[in-house]
């Protein structure tokens, strides 16, 4: 608790991050309870197609006459869910690979890092597109695909941290006490290596949301749920007649990603005090 207060005091100092945190909480709240409050079905053809924002439809209707506001609210769920889950997935893989490589070094390190290089050599977005086309788009598959293409940076970071820590005295002491490798990695080194990883994975949420929107825009999204990228893709066909249709979900993405990035910076300030903000 004391640790948290300390953290909070540091975090609070970054005003932009604080504001962003509240906006982000509001967006999350909308994503969770929004669909129960605003009960319009985003797939229901309610009114005339492609109408501009009006009293009945605050954000207008899409090409099928569906309520854009409902789409935006339901889309928040999908975007945040995929963003967070993909980031967790990437962080987990990155942690395992990076920690193993960094802790054991030598051949293990070499093999794992060559694998990492492989993933860095294929353009990540291309790889995501290929994976989803092969395994067909569903929320789970999109999440996994984004996770698969975004773990390498985490692995490299974790590896660097582990290399820096593995010869430290507390590690040597733990080893002398007969702790197993796994125990040392998880109990001893990980807590020390975690702060920068937390920052990176919070930023990964932002990247994942952007990637998801790009995939959906190309039509590679789960057809059972509505997502912001998909809404942009639908609006694109009538860009000339109704520019607001792709504009609105894009702004939603922009605001969400901006807030996540700002919060990430705030986290960085609070967690990694040794890195001075310039």
């Amino acid at each position, binding site marked *: 608790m004391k640790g948290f207060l300390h953290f909070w005091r540091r975090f609070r100092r970054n005003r932009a991050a604080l504001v962003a945190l509240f906006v982000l909480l509001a967006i999350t709240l909308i994503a969770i309870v929004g669909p129960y409050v605003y009960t319009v*079905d985003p*797939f229901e*053809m309610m009114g005339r197609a492609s109408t501009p924002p009006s009293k009945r439809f605050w954000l207008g209707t899409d*090409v099928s006459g569906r309520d854009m506001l409902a789409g935006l609210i339901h889309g928040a769920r999908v975007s945040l869910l995929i963003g967070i889950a993909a980031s967790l997935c990437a962080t987990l893989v990155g942690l395992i690979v990076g920690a193993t490589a960094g802790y054991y070094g030598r051949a293990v390190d070499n093999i794992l890092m060559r694998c990492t290089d492989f993933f860095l050599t294929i353009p990540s977005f291309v790889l995501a597109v290929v994976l989803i086309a092969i395994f*067909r*788009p*569903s929320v789970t598959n999109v999440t996994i695909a984004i996770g698969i293409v975004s773990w390498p940076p985490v692995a490299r970071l974790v590896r660097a941290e582990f290399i820096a820590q593995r010869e430290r005295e507390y590690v040597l002491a733990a080893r002398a006490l007969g702790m197993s490798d796994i125990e040392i990695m998880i109990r001893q080194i990980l807590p020390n290596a975690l702060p920068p990883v937390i920052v990176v994975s919070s930023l990964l949420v932002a990247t994942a949301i952007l990637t998801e929107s790009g995939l959906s825009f190309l039509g590679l999204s789960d057809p059972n749920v509505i997502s912001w990228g998909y809404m942009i893709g*639908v609006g694109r066909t009538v860009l*000339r007649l109704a520019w607001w249709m792709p504009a609105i979900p894009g702004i939603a993405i922009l605001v969400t990603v901006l807030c996540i990035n700002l919060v990430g910076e705030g986290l960085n300030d609070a967690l990694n005090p040794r890195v001075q903000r310039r």
Partner: protein
Amino acid sequence: MLKSVNSIALAATILTLTAGTALAQSCSKTGGTLTYVYHPEPTALSTIATSAVPVAIISTKIYESLLSYEGAEMTPKPSLAESWTISDDKLTYTFKLRHDVKWHDGKPFTAEDVKFSVEKIIRPYHSRGKVYFGDVASIDTPDPYTVVFKLKDPVPFFMNVFQPGEAPIMPKHAFDGVDLSTAGAVRKADIMQKPIGTGPFRFKEWRKGSDIILERNSDYWRKGHPCLDQVVLRVLPDGAARAIAVETGEVDLAPMSGLPEAEILRLSKLPQLETSKAGAEALGPNMWLEVNMREKPLSDVKVRQAISLVLDREKIVDVIWYGQGTPATGPIVSANPVFYNKALKPFEYNPKKANALLDEAGYKRGADGVRFKMSQNFLPYGENWVRLAEYVRQELGKVGIVVETQSLDLGGWLKAIYTDWNFNITSTFSHNYSDPSIGVERTFTSSNIKKGATFTNSMGYKNARVDELFAKAAREMDPKARKAQFDEIQQILHNDLPVIFLVELSYTHVWNKRIHGLITNGISMYSSWDSVWKD
């Protein structure tokens, strides 16, 4: 159509004499370039390689067949053949060829080219070659300008198959040194990219990714034709950019629904442009939901009727296809001037009745309001099909059928539907083509329940009466009797609903009014355009 075949057979000699006058509409104006836009870019310049739309449009200006066709009912007219006779037993077709035809490389065109094209190229390697020429027992060439087709059994649609896109006559000499035993080698032949035909336009240049230029064939056998100097295809990947090009007059034509439907709707209101759905009757695209009938509950006709009752076809046309289409009533499109059964009633939209039918069929709503769950696929041909899937899911959900949509790309979809039969329902569309025995039969007869054959009877639909009628119609030489057979088939399928018929899609063409003479028959965009002229 058959009527005209018979009358022509009797009056073959008269026709020979009047051939000149029958096609006498000479050019009102000569010169000028017709530029049309389409996307995707053709992958070859021959329908042997693939008869995909972009390939068929451009290659039919370069290649010709024995016949040309007039009107939506596709009345055969002379082309490379100047006259023909059909034996009384309808088994021998004798075509007299023109003497004055030259290939674009200057070599003379003869009967050998026809025999070679049909036997070695079209029959084995055109995607419908076996349907057209499978019953041909022999092709004889008694002299260089006579071709005699002998059939094993009568083929009622035989006079329909000599379309430039379906049976293009190719120069035998261009295949010297090409291994004709495999599809791969034939498709790699030089002529697939650099065509040599007999048509009114010859290939000039292909700037990949940008345009294909065809120029006037000055040696064209039809004197004074073609009217145009050039036909140019511009490839523009972006739909909105294509629409603007048509709007500003930079291009003259966007054929075959080559623009996004929303843009067609917008352009149709402009004074300088003409918009028409006519000229594609011999293709007859028809869209439906294919139902896998191998399992309950979809094997129950009441359930299929209920699904049909829930879907508002007017709304699908207006909202999802931006008005570009007509509610379907059965397997044959209503624009078909010969075979459509006018007695068919429109499908009803009545969700209440659907609920009652489902109750009756024994699929009562559970405590959660759900009757049963199923999955659906959709044809991955773009955004409209996604929105159709969303609409279907939404409307079926309202009567308690929970639908999960699965998205597959074309490769995955084809495999799931036509090779694995691993689906519940899926949207798809199919062409009627110029005869129901060619385009409709393949979806509904039990002999077409074949794994690995695309756009066939994926439903597993078996109806002995339908099989029998199709079998008869495929050999029936009396037009009246044949029409009656197809009428009955349409009525049975309308009631049985092996597929949920939804919308007759339209191929809408948008062109600048300075272009004249485009719509001439049921496949106007796959015709030679030798009489098209520009102000």
